């Protein structure tokens, strides 16, 4: 809501309050102020009269004018084609300021001296949308030469723009703003009372409704209307409020709407088929052409104002083109009605048709203002359009007239706010707000005024008290609730994952969860249909991801394209489903990893990533993980595995298929995904202690020749099964094929570490165990010692 301060002054004195002070006070006590600005930027302009116009000999687009500015006659060069002798115009003399801070100086144009400028409205700082004028602005013949032009045009005004919250529909009117300002500053409020004189002509007119979505409808008929421009002050105020002046009838309906918050509509009476208004709901598919010349297709529920035969307005949203007021209009049907807020909202948002009227109706208007606004507009029309008002107002009004009484006790106010206000404090707030109340049995019974549709409960009253007393005056205390704060074990677990991976040198990423539908399953292990938006934001943000890997792969490609040599990233994301959102850890690795050095940097490959996964496993007490070679779509067919904990699959790991990667201009990308929710459930809950053995361990190395396609893990499983708890650890420390190893075979070197808990291990004993292992390996895997 853009508030003209000169207008506001009519209802409440702003004496001693600067616009900036008003803005900061309203911000703290009422609504946030978006901006404070003068209606126009221009300054020091005069009214002049064009005495003569000659063409400049050197440039025929320029006219050389003699302009009487009251005290002096000055030569001014003007470029506008519409300048004519005898016009009253707006003149900027040297020293004046125009829009955009342009300073006027004496200049020479094509060798001709120019002592100022004849201005257009745009040059004054008025947006084109308010006037649609291309050339200089021509004033009325009666404009007084030498006087201040800005004052004459009533543009000497300041606008305070309120950023309204949707509950305060009352502030969509100047009256509402005046109520609030008067309450905040504790000043008197004086609102006008419309006085109309009706002609003796009878108003033979019927008004009916067939829907409860139009609870009230008031109308008057006016005759002998003279369509003309509105007075300057009225036009200026509309412009200040952001509305383009059209003609006196339209402008007055808009003016009264801004003043009271009650939208009005004027119909050209002669274009109605009958002296009748019938309000009904639209039929499915019914069409109607609105004022903006758009053919609207309606749905059941939309409210139509009709003349009994044809629709004349889309109720509460916009009038019809057929019954629009024009230059030839003589008689008016003036409507002041109320509509169901929810229906207006439905209609206007479906048709994407937001009007000043629909904005107010969908938030709720003051039903007591409906007849008031009608009379107020009639009074203006009588004055400024020379209209005569027919006798009698026609209406129906189904609004409940019961008072809305809200009880509230002082203790409740103080208990909610944590304040120590007195009864007098509370009374003073209600008085300033013009809320009536009575005290009964220790409570205030407050009557919520009809203009404040947002005041419904005691909490709303507490808000009024809080804001008028200033929330910032409340003490700073902390809740008395005693409780133990903590992260859950799972929340700590997730933090540990982040900490561990960060310490290892990986960076956390946060990627978008909404992605292209086609790519959702590219890098997941199990395909399924993703959850999709019913109205996608865009093609790129269409469906919910099933793995953080979708985003992480792109992070690799993005950074690679920006010449980042190493990209090692992770993200804790989700597998989004309609009824569950299990969390997934994604890891992506590409390029040299630790320790990058001039001496030697180990290559980054499948095993680097496997090492990172194992670091998590060891660092976070996860169950032992095993890896089973697997074929996964878009992954390297021979460098991918599912990750298992016991018999449960908990994730996958692998190299992205080179062909897929190439499609995104990357290569050598390694990805892993782990179901951290499952791993959390399976992990060892707390560390367990086991005394350190007093006896030294013994290790033995075995070099074995086995079939080339035998997985080392299988071999180790057999070793472990054979030695059981005597074995502390087995590790493959060399893999070799080539010279001295026959075709189809490979050599695996395994280190076995034995640990004795009871006594020093005897070499003989170990030899015996080794023999058992070799025998078992031969039987199970046909392995032989090299």
């Amino acid at each position, binding site marked *: 809501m853009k508030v003209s301060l000169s207008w506001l002054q009519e209802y409440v004195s702003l004496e001693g309050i600067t616009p900036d002070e008003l803005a900061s006070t309203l911000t703290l006590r009422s609504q946030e102020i978006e901006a404070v600005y003068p209606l126009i930027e221009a300054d020091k302009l005069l009214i002049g009269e064009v005495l003569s116009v000659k063409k400049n000999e050197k440039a025929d687009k320029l006219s050389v004018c003699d302009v009487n500015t009251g005290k002096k006659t000055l030569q001014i060069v003007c470029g506008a084609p519409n300048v004519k002798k005898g016009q009253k115009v707006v003149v900027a003399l040297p020293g004046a300021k125009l829009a955009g801070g342009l300073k006027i100086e004496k200049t020479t144009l094509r060798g001709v001296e120019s002592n100022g400028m004849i201005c257009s409205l745009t040059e004054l700082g008025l947006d084109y949308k308010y006037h649609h004028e291309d050339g200089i602005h021509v004033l009325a013949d009666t404009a007084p030469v030498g006087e201040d032009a800005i004052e004459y045009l009533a543009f000497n005004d300041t606008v305070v723009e309120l950023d309204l919250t949707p509950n305060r529909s009352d502030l969509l009117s100047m009256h509402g703003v005046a109520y609030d300002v008067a309450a905040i500053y504790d000043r008197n409020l004086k609102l006008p009372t419309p006085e109309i004189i009706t002609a003796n002509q009878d108003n033979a007119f019927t008004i009916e409704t067939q829907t409860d979505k139009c609870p009230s409808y008031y109308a008057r008929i006016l005759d002998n209307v003279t369509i003309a421009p509105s007075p300057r002050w009225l036009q200026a105020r509309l412009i200040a409020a952001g509305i383009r002046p059209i003609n006196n009838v339209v402008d007055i309906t808009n003016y009264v709407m801004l003043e009271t918050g009650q939208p009005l509509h004027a119909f050209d009476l002669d274009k109605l088929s009958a002296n009748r208004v019938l309000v009904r709901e639209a039929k499915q598919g019914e069409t109607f052409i609105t004022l903006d010349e758009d053919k609207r297709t309606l749905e059941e529920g939309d409210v139509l104002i009709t003349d009994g035969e044809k629709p004349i307005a889309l109720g509460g949203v916009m009038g019809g083109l057929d019954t629009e007021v024009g230059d030839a209009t003589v008689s008016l049907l003036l409507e002041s009605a109320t509509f169901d807020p929810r229906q207006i909202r439905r209609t206007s948002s479906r048709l994407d048709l937001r009007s000043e009227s629909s904005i107010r109706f969908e938030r709720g208007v003051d039903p007591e203002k409906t007849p008031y606004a009608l009379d107020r507009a009639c009074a203006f029309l009588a004055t400024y359009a020379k209209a005569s008002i027919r006798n009698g107002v026609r209406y129906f009004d189904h609004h409940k007239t019961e008072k809305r009484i809200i009880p509230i006790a002082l203790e409740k106010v103080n208990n909610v706010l944590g304040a120590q206000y007195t009864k007098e404090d509370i009374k003073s707030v209600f008085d300033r707000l013009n809320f009536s109340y009575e005290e009964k049995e220790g409570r205030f019974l407050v009557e919520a005024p009809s203009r404040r549709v947002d005041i419904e409960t005691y909490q709303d009253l507490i808000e009024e008290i809080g804001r008028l007393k200033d929330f910032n005056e409340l003490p700073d205390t902390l809740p008395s609730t005693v409780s133990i704060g903590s992260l859950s074990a799972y929340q700590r677990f997730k933090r540990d994952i982040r900490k561990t991976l960060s310490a290892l040198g990986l*960076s956390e990423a946060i990627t978008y969860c909404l992605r292209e539908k086609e790519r959702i399953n590219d890098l997941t292990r199990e395909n399924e249909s993703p959850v999709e938006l019913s109205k996608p934001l865009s093609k790129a943000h269409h469906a919910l991801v099933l793995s953080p890997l979708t985003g992480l792969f792109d992070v690799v490609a993005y950074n690679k394209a920006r010449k980042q040599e190493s990209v090692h990233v992770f993200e804790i994301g989700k597998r989004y489903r309609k009824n569950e959102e299990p969390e997934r850890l994604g890891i992506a690795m590409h390029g040299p990893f630790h320790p990058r050095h001039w001496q030697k940097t180990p290559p980054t490959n499948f095993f680097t990533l496997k090492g990172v996964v194992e670091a998590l496993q060891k660092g976070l007490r996860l169950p032992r993980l095993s890896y089973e070679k697997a074929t996964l779509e878009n992954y390297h067919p021979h460098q991918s595995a599912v990750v298992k904990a016991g018999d449960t699959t908990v994730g996958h790991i692998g190299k992205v298929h080179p062909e897929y990667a190439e499609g995104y201009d990357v290569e050598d990308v390694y990805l892993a995904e782990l179901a951290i929710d499952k791993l959390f459930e399976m992990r060892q809950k707390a560390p367990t202690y086991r005394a350190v053995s007093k006896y030294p361990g013994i290790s033995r190395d075995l070099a074995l020749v086995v079939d080339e396609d035998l997985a080392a893990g299988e071999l180790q499983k057999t070793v472990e099964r054979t030695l059981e708890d005597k074995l502390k650890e087995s590790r493959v420390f060399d893999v070799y094929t080539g010279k001295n190893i026959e075709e189809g075979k490979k050599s695996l070197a395994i280190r076995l570490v034995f640990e004795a808990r009871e006594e020093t291990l005897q070499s003989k004993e170990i030899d015996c165990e080794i023999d058992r292992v070799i025998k078992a390996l031969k039987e199970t895997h046909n392995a032989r010692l090299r």
Partner: protein
Amino acid sequence: MDIQKRIEELEEALKKELENVKTMNDLQNVKSKFLGKKAEISGFMKHMKDLSNDEKPAFGKKVNEGKQRLSALIEEKREALRKAAIEEKLRQETIDVTLDAPDFTPGGVHILNRIVEEIEDIFVGMGYKIKEGPEIETDEMNFEKLNLPKDHPARDMQDSLYITEELLLRTHTSPVQVRTMLEYGGKKPVKIICPGKVYRRDDDDATHSHQFLQIEGLVVDKNTTMSDLKGTLNTIAKAMFGEEREIRLRPSYFPFTEPSVEVDVTCANCAGEGCNICKQTGYIEILGAGMVNDFVLKESGYDPKIYQGFAFGLGIERVAMLKYGIEDIRHFYTNDLRFNTQFK
């Protein structure tokens, strides 16, 4: 023969030879020559028999002392050789200490999650628990139970991403509050914060993101007041933005709180004087808050005649942008490592 003189001559000869000794091997040879069985000094004892009994002890002493002196010279040389050998070995181990170390740079937690963790820690310190919930929410949880019926004008404030008529991506983490209250069964006090991702129908630009992170807080008890809210927010603002920051409360509107306020913190850039960052107001908006609307308490199983509470919510991106002067919200989701790795 003057034994004394001869021993001194031997000493001189040994010193001379030792000068040329370079290795332990050379030293061993010299030692054999001067102190071995066939060495001259070893032969001196044979002369003992030619001496009178009176002379014998003095002679013997001189020979032994002579042997000791020769031996000392050799040992001295041996020590010198050993030291030289060690020094040479160390010299060969010389390195260029300015050469680069292997790169063990740690990665880092994403700046947004770091801020979430920081805020969580402050609240955990004040006795709050952390609650999370689904991002795919029902219209009922996201809106209706929060006093936002269908067709409510405030639904415009958060234009939403729907999946079906009844399912949408949550527009705030408030439904977690409702879920928690329902879980607590209307019986015990609530003191929680709810961090998480939320979504709005916005086109991404420098200040808008269709996905962002939010933290909301909720305290419900028998005597929770608006002053408690103010004190809590003041504590948080100071902990997050610095001791010298002040907050201010402005009336606002949220359907789920009543009264509702928006909370500004004094601008760190200009200390409240007014600058471009704060649009000359001296304040920067950081969060929305208020007393929980009775409707919400009722819908969540709490009796508003007994319980009351406050709630607040803030956007993490906004906090990060203010704290670090980050100018474009999209940086957080681009994951350019040159950006992500700056926040250690």
